[in-house]
């Protein structure tokens, strides 16, 4: 059971702690700076914050005994002279870290290992707690990587990284847009997975192409890693074979569109989503913020509303802004309009911690 939350926002990193019977903001770091993502590494006790200083670029900070220190930012290798590579808009693709979009710990058996996904699609691995980063060249050099495209952002990006709890060398990632990829050897070789998803906005020949899929978020059950859940641009998908194949779940009310998904750490059939109107509007249906939950692998979904605003709510919960703790009982979510809610009963009821935070980009239990 976790009593701490890291909340990354447009204007700082908020540490929210359970005090007595409620959750309160206990600390603010990097106030007024754009904190796009944070990681609490339970193996080392260290915390990491990804900052985007705009004109001055992306930086990574790591907690120390008495504060924070700037550490290495994942950096792309030198672009070969004469190489022409354009993004989907015909502009030169930057070989440069534009955004850190995924930051996760390696396995329990590999202390110091971190994985980092970025825009424009580069994946990095650190073996020394982020002191240095190695570019995962095999993925970048894969011919299909060049077909990746921007989703909501102009550039493609890796937003989900899942280290298999049974074998730390097995890592699955998800790309918007570029579908799902898997390595069984800690990044030396990569294969495409994620068959069965559909991208209805693509030309007919591309609708079922795994590399064209706009996966918004990929989640894996820790106790049953064969089970993966996807919140996709086109809906909700579930896999029972480690992400090789997915089945679409269409009867999801009030909407199958959204960004975030989390799965219970021990119950593979239980997952949560935060629906929005698909797809250009992107606000809660009827102005009511709800969480949808399935307990039976997607056969049925419950709409959970207790404690959430049910009138004129225009909160969007981004892909990293819905979190679950290791107990599976506590969930938290933050919204683009500065709302932060915590549930201690698997989403049955929610308590508002604040509705005046800066836009929330990411929430993680400590």
């Amino acid at each position, binding site marked *: 059971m976790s009593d701490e939350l890291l909340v990354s926002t447009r204007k700082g990193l908020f540490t929210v702690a359970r005090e007595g019977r409620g959750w309160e903001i206990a600390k603010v770091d990097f106030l007024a700076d754009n904190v796009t993502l944070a990681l609490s590494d339970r193996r080392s006790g260290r915390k990491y914050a990804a900052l985007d*200083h*705009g*004109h*001055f*670029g992306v*930086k990574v900070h790591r907690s120390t005994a008495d504060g924070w220190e*700037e550490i290495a*930012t994942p*950096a*792309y290798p*030198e*672009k070969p002279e004469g190489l022409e590579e354009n993004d989907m808009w015909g502009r030169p693709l*930057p*070989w*440069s*870290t534009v955004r850190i979009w995924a930051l996760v710990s390696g396995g329990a058996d590999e202390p110091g290992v971190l994985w980092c996904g970025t825009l424009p699609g580069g994946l990095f691995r650190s073996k020394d707690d982020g002191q240095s980063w190695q570019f995962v060249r095999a993925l970048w050099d894969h011919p299909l990587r060049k077909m990746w495209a921007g989703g909501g952002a102009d550039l493609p990006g890796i937003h989900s990284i899942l280290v298999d709890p049974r074998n730390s060398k097995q890592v699955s990632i998800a790309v918007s847009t570029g579908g799902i990829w898997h390595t069984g050897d800690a990044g030396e070789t990569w294969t495409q997975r994620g068959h069965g998803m559909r991208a209805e906005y693509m030309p007919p020949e591309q609708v079922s192409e795994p590399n064209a899929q706009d996966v918004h978020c990929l989640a894996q059950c820790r106790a049953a890693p064969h089970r993966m859940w996807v919140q996709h641009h086109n809906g909700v998908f579930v896999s029972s074979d480690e992400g090789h194949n997915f089945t679409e779940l269409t009867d999801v009310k009030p909407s199958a569109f959204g960004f975030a998904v989390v799965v219970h750490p021990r119950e593979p059939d239980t997952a949560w989503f935060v629906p929005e109107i698909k797809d250009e509007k992107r606000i809660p249906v009827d102005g009511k913020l709800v969480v949808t939950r399935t307990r039976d692998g997607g056969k049925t979904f419950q709409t959970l509303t207790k404690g959430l605003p049910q009138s004129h709510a225009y909160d969007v919960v981004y892909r990293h802004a819905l979190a679950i703790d290791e107990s599976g009982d506590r969930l938290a979510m933050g919204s683009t309009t500065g709302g932060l809610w915590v549930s201690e009963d698997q989403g049955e009821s929610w308590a508002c911690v604040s509705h005046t935070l800066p836009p929330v980009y990411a929430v993680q239990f400590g």
Partner: protein
Amino acid sequence: MARVVFTPNIQRHVACPEAEAPGATVREVLDAVFAANPQARSYVLDDQAALRRHMTIFIDGVMISDRKDLGDAVGDRSTIYVFQALSGG
């Protein structure tokens, strides 16, 4: 030795004191400055060592033209200003 002055706005994130450094081009001068202050480098240059998109550099009041290779000539008594567009929100 060229004189190098950094925008005050960068100082909140990383110390960039005014410096003097040798070099015949912007690249040579900045390489010398960042050799002594390596943490500042990535605040000004991107992963390919080009000038960051919203950063700019003036030499004696004239904006440089070579943002990629930083090959603009620098005089021995030049002043180089490193600054950025301002935005907020």
